[in-house]
């Protein structure tokens, strides 16, 4: 899928590591939008740009320490950490709402569809479903949200997500599942009847 692209990227990474600022800027431009999309769903619109800019700058400064194989995973790790830090510092400033209770609510059960409710698929199609998905994501614990977004939006493999979020792969697995289940439950509670296709 991206053999040539990743080769070119590896070349850029190597040049950037040797101090080529232009090579780094090219790399940064390539990941700028995915990073922003990730940061925005993690911390919201107000802080997302700051998080990405901080992450990219800090990546440039610590580029010499980058030894992994995937620059993309590495930069997402930095950005995800920044985002989680931002959320933690918000928690210390109580004018902002707290995160929902963390992963202590183990084994989320499968909520059954509301007895009466409009069928989303028939009424508004995916557009309304997407709004519900967005809202449901916002209510997830930050770590679950990060894992789920890294998987479903950014397409990282479980191993990569484990590296990015520095947890065991089993934790990644359960975070993704719980997160998805919570979103599914939110959809079902609003009358979603499952995928149309």
């Amino acid at each position, binding site marked *: 899928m991206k053999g040539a692209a990743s080769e070119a990227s590896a070349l850029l990474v190597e040049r950037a590591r040797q101090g080529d600022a232009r090579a780094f800027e090219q790399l940064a431009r390539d990941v700028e*939008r995915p990073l922003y999309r990730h940061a925005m769903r993690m911390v919201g619109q107000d802080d997302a740009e700051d998080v990405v800019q901080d992450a*990219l700058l800090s990546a440039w400064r610590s580029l010499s320490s980058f030894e992994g194989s995937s620059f993309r995973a590495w930069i997402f790790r930095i950005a995800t950490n920044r985002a989680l830090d931002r959320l933690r510092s918000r928690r210390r400033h109580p004018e902002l709402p707290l995160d929902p209770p963390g992963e202590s609510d183990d*084994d989320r059960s499968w909520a059954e569809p509301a007895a009466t409710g409009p069928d989303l698929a028939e009424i508004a199609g995916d557009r309304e479903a997407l709004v519900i998905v967005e809202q449901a994501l916002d209510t997830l614990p930050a770590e679950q949200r990060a894992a789920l977004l890294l998987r*479903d939006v950014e397409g990282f493999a479980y191993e990569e997500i484990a590296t990015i979020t520095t947890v065991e792969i089993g934790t990644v697995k359960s975070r993704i599942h719980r997160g*998805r289940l919570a979103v599914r439950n939110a959809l079902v509670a609003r009358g979603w009847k499952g995928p149309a296709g």
Partner: protein
Amino acid sequence: MREPAGAANVVREGGYATVHPFADLSAYIDDALDPSAKAAVETHLAACAVCRTHLAELRGTARLIAALPAPVPSRSLVPRVSVPFWLAPIRTLATLASGAALFLFVGSLVLSGLPFGTGGGAAAPAAAPAPNAPNAGAPAGPVGAADQRTASTASASPAAGYAVNATASPTQELQRSTDATKAVTGTAAPAAQRGDKVTTAPVAVVYSASERPQLGPSPWFWLVLAVGFGALAFVLQRRLRRA
């Protein structure tokens, strides 16, 4: 906590208990199960409609999450870490130019001996190119040349100056011109005063009015230039430090 959840996952199928592999369904979708777990899930799915439904729902959920509209940043978030190669030399040149312009500003202010804000600008245009202008009324020789310069730098009334000068004796004329040259070249103020004393009073008045040394443009021009170059150097320096 585990107990009710576990109990909920237990179903009876054909007389024996089976546990729904709910927790593995997401990993199954993502192809993140090891082969034996994957085979177990597949076996179960073949026999369990509940799990097939859940699997479809989870898959649909993942697809919806992936289909979320992608927000776009309002500005470029790429830090500008590279600097054009010409930035540093231009910064240095701008700094030097600013210093030079500032020096010229102070120098021309001091030389013109003016209080701030008067005259300099008005007299400026006539100043520099004057020396070679033809002047029929002036005597020949070096004295005449010096006189000519004095006259043409006078913005107020050169004619009056000449009228008085014409009545002065040649020696007076010579000394005055010499002193005037000294004053123009910035030698000393006393010299100019001495020269003024030698001539008659009206001449002295006209003379001092005409004697402003104009080093090219107005001092304020140099100040503006100094500020401009200074600002440029400042901006470039900030840009360099950010990188």
